[in-house]
């Protein structure tokens, strides 16, 4: 960063990076529609918008991943022609994506050195010196020789950030950096980002979280459906203003939900241990109970065992010890098919990889898993008439926007993909619904739809196990909240009896119970 300060033609406060009328079209979507943004030197500038608003696309254009169809990017007033991220880095622009671009089996130093301009000899000594300086300077405790794959996600993010700074960039773009952090980790990140800004670094931060914008940014540009709604000084606005800009209307901050009383337990997970291959995300004696007619929200930073819990309940993986009972029956060792027949619906976190056949038609996805039910086949032969009728009805009931039931699923939007899954899973009036990140990546309308359906199912008497990294969602939907940390439930409480901060402490493992951090 020391290098960075010298090259600037722009003094602090002047425009350093400008996008002018940038348009970027993907098949079927105008991701950026004549977008103009001015980034000033040494400011923290937030790009705020819902999922699909075009924030990441804009950042990817500034970073050379995409070339816009129209418009241009100016750096220090001169047009910038970027053909690849390499060009961007050479121009002093670095970016940390949501998907880290690290090599897990290699050390921190090696990861940092990858991508530096080729030299005759690889000088790790020099790299180590600079890296240790960085870490010491910013109070970040990471061993430069540690294998990156063994670091926590938060630490990996630091490696990504320092890797970028090591290239000597003067503009740093961060795409949703807080998604993988605890509230406390977020505080640390923000503290360091503020200091880096004070030292002259220009920071562009992509987020959809209003609170982060208010906490951190100097200015904020709000995008909606690929267009810029406006750029404002953060000091001049409050969260409500930003929410209105982002969504285009007043936002209901609360979901309507009547009180409920839990009935008989439909899911009883007792002291299960399940070791994951990677060693991270294992279950270490987790217990949780879900009754009929209640939503139990599992809060936690990702990678603390949510995937394993989901897999164990739906039967894709089986715990080594402990037991799982669904509707009173032991399903610890049961196959997914058998568990489904007990009336268990599952909404997986990764709907494309785990929930759908993207190359199947919509109607095929609507019966996926139920193809052997009497309704859809006899003696192994599919009953196409019944499948068509069911599909037409589901598309109607769940408002799935598709040209026809025979449409290939790949062509549908994320919200409609999730509606296909919801339609399929809720069709059998399940007793238990296991939903993992059910609204991730969805727009506001689809999110509201999914949440409303979950509450309806609860009111019908289903038990819902909801795992989410979105604490607002947890607080809005849950009748009880449990916090998962390091493969265990470390706290169980009710939304009215706790605060965001308290849940955050538990998520970070800073419990005051005897089940506290290791």
């Amino acid at each position, binding site marked *: 960063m020391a290098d960075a300060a010298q090259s600037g033609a722009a003094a602090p406060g002047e425009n350093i990076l400008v996008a002018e009328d940038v348009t970027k079209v*993907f*098949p*079927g979507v105008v991701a950026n529609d004549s977008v103009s943004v001015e980034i000033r030197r040494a400011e923290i500038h937030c790009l705020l918008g819902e*999922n*699909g608003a075009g924030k*990441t*696309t804009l950042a990817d254009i500034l970073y050379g991943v995409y*070339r*816009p*169809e*129209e418009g241009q990017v100016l750096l220090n007033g001169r*047009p910038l*022609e970027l053909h*690849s991220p390499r060009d961007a880095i050479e121009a002093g622009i670095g970016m940390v994506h*949501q*998907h*880290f671009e690290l090599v897990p089996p290699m050390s921190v130093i090696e990861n940092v050195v990858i991508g530096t301009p080729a030299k005759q000899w690889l000088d790790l000594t020099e790299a180590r010196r600079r890296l240790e300086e960085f870490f010491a300077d910013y109070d970040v405790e990471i061993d430069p020789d540690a294998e990156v794959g063994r670091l926590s*996600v938060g630490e990996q993010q630091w490696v990504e950030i320092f890797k970028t700074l090591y290239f000597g960039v003067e503009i740093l773009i961060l795409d*949703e950096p807080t*998604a*993988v952090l605890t509230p406390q980790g977020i505080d640390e990140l923000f503290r360091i980002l503020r200091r880096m800004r004070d030292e002259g670094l220009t920071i562009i931060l992509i987020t959809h979280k209003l609170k982060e914008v208010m906490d951190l940014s100097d200015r904020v540009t709000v995008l909606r459906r690929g267009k810029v709604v406006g750029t404002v000084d953060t000091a001049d606005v409050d969260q409500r203003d930003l929410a209105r800009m982002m969504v285009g209307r007043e936002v209901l901050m609360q979901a309507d939900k009547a009180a409920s009383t839990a009935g008989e337990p439909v899911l009883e997970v007792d002291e299960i241990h399940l070791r994951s291959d*990677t060693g991270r*995300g294992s279950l270490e004696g987790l217990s949780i109970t879900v009754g009929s007619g209640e939503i139990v929200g599992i809060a936690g930073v*990702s*990678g603390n065992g949510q*995937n*394993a819990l989901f*897999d164990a309940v739906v039967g*894709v*993986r089986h715990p080594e010890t402990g037991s799982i009972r669904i509707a009173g029956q032991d399903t610890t060792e049961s*196959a*997914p*098919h*058998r568990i489904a027949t007990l009336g268990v619906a599952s909404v*997986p*976190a*990764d709907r*494309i*990889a*785990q*929930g*759908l*056949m*993207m190359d*199947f038609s919509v109607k095929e996805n609507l019966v*996926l*898993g139920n*193809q*052997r039910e009497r309704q859809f*086949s006899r003696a*192994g*032969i*599919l009953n*196409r008439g019944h499948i068509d009728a069911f599909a037409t009805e589901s598309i109607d009931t769940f408002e799935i926007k598709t040209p026809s039931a025979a449409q290939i699923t*790949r*062509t549908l939007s*994320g919200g409609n993909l999730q509606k296909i899954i919801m339609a399929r899973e809720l069709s059998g009036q399940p007793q238990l619904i296991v939903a993992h*990140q059910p609204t*991730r*990546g969805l727009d506001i309308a689809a999110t509201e739809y999914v949440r409303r359906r979950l509450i309806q199912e609860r009111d019908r008497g289903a038990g819902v196990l909801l795992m989410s990294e979105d604490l607002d969602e947890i607080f809005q939907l849950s009748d009880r909240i449990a916090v998962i940390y390091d493969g265990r439930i470390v706290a169980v409480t009710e939304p009215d009896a706790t605060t965001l901060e308290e849940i955050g402490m538990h998520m970070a493992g800073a419990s005051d119970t005897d089940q506290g951090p290791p």
Partner: protein
Amino acid sequence: MSEQVADAPQDSPRDDHEADAGRDPLSMLFQPGAWRLERRLYTRPVYELYATLIALAVTAVIIGLLVIIVGVSPLDAFASLYEGAFGNRESALETLVQATPLILTGLCAAIAFRAGVWNIGGQGQFIAGAIGTWWVYDTFSGLPAPVLFVAMFAGAAVFGAVWATVASVLLVRYGTNEILTTVMLNFVIDSGLSWLLSGPWQANNTPYSQTERMVESAFLPRFFDGSRLHLGFALALVMAVVVHFLVRRTTLGFELRAIGVNKQAASYKGISVGAAVIAVMAISGALAGLAGAGELLGLHHRINFEFGGQAVGFTGIIIALVARLHPAGVIVVAIAFAGLLNGATQMQVGTGIPAALVDVIEGVALVLVLLAAVACRYRLRKIAHHG
């Protein structure tokens, strides 16, 4: 395979798939000036057909250029190739004779590939089918003819299926790569056949490694006088219909297509990936086994060391891929390839071009059709701009 269900922590949200389309590596590589290569979200099947036809036309042009290099007029070469393949009734019927095992081995590869299982062992399963046929013939020769035919075909199917199942059990139980095991099992059964032919099954009073000739009552009926076209051809056509029905209209077909598209989602939705793999491999092997029975009962009437020398199992793989795994396509492509094989001799005699050119044609066609299959997932778009 079901064990491989990912357990990587999903730390970061997935991009919209619209964005994935633009991030495609091929699109990023290819960005000349004002034109851009873009991945299509969805390719209409008719485009795939056009792309395949264009690829075949380009194949003809390339082969034509090769022929010119040899110093022969491409028109003459193609004319004599066609003449030999389909020029008169005899040659056309003989082409169908050659197509018979290719249709079955093509279906063998197509159904397995549809499920994402790479059965490269069609050749070995073909041999296993012939062995099964002979074993039934040898063991139950007293049966009345119709029953014996059914039993011999059943034996062929079972032997082919069992041979394929060796690989699928290794795959499901231990995760052994099925490409390697199926290929290696081809060698194993070749050696096994050599042993049978020079030992237990060797004909009396001959130095050759071969079985006795079958009695005529065990020959498959032929359709016409003066042509070798036998009942096996009809069987192959029927099996193509069966495979199509199985894949599109049954729960098993639904499940095997599902594991071919996304094994992880299939297992989350309660489909037993292992069971589906075992089933599809058994069906695949049975199809190749039937090809072996057809060749033995319809044409050769004995097994000798040349049996399987045409490598129909391997050609079936190419046919399946060129046909884009579609059963009707397999029939068309198998007949076309058989025509090439059949016409090659005439072309060699008539123009002096080596019959081995047919291998080149097959290879070029395969590469171009596969390229076309990738290419038609993209479109070129003109972009406005640039500064």
